[in-house]
């Protein structure tokens, strides 16, 4: 059995690529470094777009990164069904790149939120197949522009199509519409969320191990498929 090769992109200003790569390894996958300036996915089976402040959040959070060379093949592969996970700034990048609908804007109340949050897993996707739908997990949230917004028709469609993957179990601390913390593409292969599962994979360094499930889910899916 060959292990799943999962790429982790580093942009200028990315912070959480090391933790994301570590989460991939904890889940039994092989983490492959991808560089923002190379339009090359190095033959990976899935991609994680990690958190941070790519390009200093210039213009809009994720806006410049979404138009960097590596994102061309990521968008193409994501549309073709490759599993892609965007975490925090990575979620903002996937929205800016058009892989996911809606946008992330400044938190209601303007306060940067940095604390553990409860999330309800509401959909089985490439990244959540190992959870039970309805399961509550706890992971850290750390963002200043995490308020998910989209027009009402888009929100209704996401709900109707089962594409709200994660919802805050409390009123969204950032004011996200309908308490949405994470969504997926129509085929459930591309997922973005504001909280950080990669920081909750080891009880020594995080609030628990709930976040590991995203990474074991995708590794299991890829190794079964292979």
């Amino acid at each position, binding site marked *: 059995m060959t292990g799943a090769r999962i790429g982790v992109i580093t942009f200028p200003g990315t912070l959480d690529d090391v933790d994301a790569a570590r989460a991939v390894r904890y889940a039994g996958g092989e983490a492959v470094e991808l560089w923002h300036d190379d339009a090359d996915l190095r033959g990976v089976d899935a991609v994680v777009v990690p958190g941070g402040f790519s390009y200093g959040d210039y*213009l*809009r959070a994720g*806006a410049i990164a979404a*138009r960097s060379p590596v994102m061309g093949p990521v968008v193409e592969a994501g549309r073709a069904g490759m599993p892609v996970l965007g975490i925090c700034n990575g979620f903002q990048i996937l*929205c*800016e790149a058009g892989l996911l*609908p*809606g*946008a992330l*804007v*400044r*938190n*209601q*109340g*303007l306060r940067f939120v940095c604390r553990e949050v409860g999330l309800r897993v509401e959909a089985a996707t490439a990244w959540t197949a190992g959870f039970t739908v309805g399961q509550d997990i706890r992971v850290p949230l750390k963002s200043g522009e995490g*308020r998910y*917004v*989209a*027009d009402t028709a888009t929100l209704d469609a996401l709900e109707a199509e089962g594409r709200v993957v994660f919802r805050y179990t409390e009123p969204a601390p950032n*004011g996200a519409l309908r308490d949405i913390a994470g969504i997926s593409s129509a085929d459930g292969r591309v997922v973005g969320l504001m909280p950080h599962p990669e920081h909750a994979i080891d009880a020594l360094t995080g609030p628990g191990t709930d976040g590991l499930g995203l990474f074991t889910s995708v590794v299991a899916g890829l190794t079964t498929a292979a």
Partner: protein
Amino acid sequence: MIVDVLPKAEILDPQGQAVARAMGRLGVAGVADVRQGKHFELEVDDTVGDAELENIAATLLANPVIEEWVVRRVS
């Protein structure tokens, strides 16, 4: 050319609200609302057409999901 970008009216603009509240603290009366956006000045040559300018605004300078924009040519 000038591109002015503002959050759409239906999008909550907490930064604009904070600015409006600060005006109240300064004793400025009569300002009902503030919306905060971005102002871009681009030097473009005459070969760049209106459609291309609109494309630049719609695909990069503004995010159509949350923002509206106005493109103006100035000499």
